[in-house]
């Protein structure tokens, strides 16, 4: 129950407080440049919005159906975390690391609460066979 609530809350976080919907909408609003293209943030906002409003919520919400069978969805969130970290390093943008830290905390909470930890989280125990 707590796991599902967290998934929903995390998805809602990125859509709202995480500026997902507003950035996506501002990018899609045609004519948002007001004739001053140099200062327009439309495309850049939409690029971030695509991550915060599509990729991250999709990753969290698809876990709601069957956590153990949707491991790729959480791997998707891990990939987004890595992408933000890479962006922080390449663009020298310290704010990206706040996104990285936020996602890391969310993943840690989900790992803690996960009712049936998907194989991604569970180390495989190799079966050792003796040939004696």
């Amino acid at each position, binding site marked *: 129950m707590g796991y599902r609530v967290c998934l929903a809350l995390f998805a809602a976080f990125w859509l709202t407080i995480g500026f997902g919907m507003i950035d996506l909408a501002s990018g899609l609003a045609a004519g948002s440049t007001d004739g001053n293209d140099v200062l327009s943030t439309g495309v850049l906002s939409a690029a971030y919005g695509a991550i915060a409003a599509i990729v991250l919520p999709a*990753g969290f919400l698809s876990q709601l159906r069957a956590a153990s069978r949707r491991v790729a969805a959480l791997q998707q969130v891990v990939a987004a975390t890595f992408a933000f970290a*890479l962006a922080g390093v390449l663009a*020298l943008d310290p*704010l990206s690391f706040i996104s990285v830290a936020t996602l890391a905390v969310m993943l840690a909470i989900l790992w803690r609460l996960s009712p049936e930890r998907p194989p991604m989280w569970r180390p495989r125990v190799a079966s050792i066979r003796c040939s004696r």
Partner: protein
Amino acid sequence: MAPARGKHPLFALTAMTAVPWLIYGLEMAANGRAGLPPDEQAGRPQAGGWAGAVALAPLVVLLGLLAATKTRGWRTPALSAAAASFVFGLVSILNPDAPGSAGAIWGALAIGWSVIFTATAVHEPAGDQ
């Protein structure tokens, strides 16, 4: 559009799009390091501005590769990559001269790729979803 065919169509489609995305990402990163306008939006504690565009570039490629590995639930990253590419392409077409825009032609190509990738993902056997 017809779905791509072959032994590993999702991987092939991802490989096809990787180079343009990575070149785009490096270019956006250079713009960010140079501090070109528009500046980062004030009062937001998340990544944004140039860094958001830098993050999107490798993420689309990573999601495509993740889908190609056919891990359980692979359709989520497949459709997410396609949707993100579609949105980026659409916004680039709507704002061809804005900072971060790939322009109308590359925007159209991004949309075309997302449509083919979606069609291919939908036609692939779901496996253990």
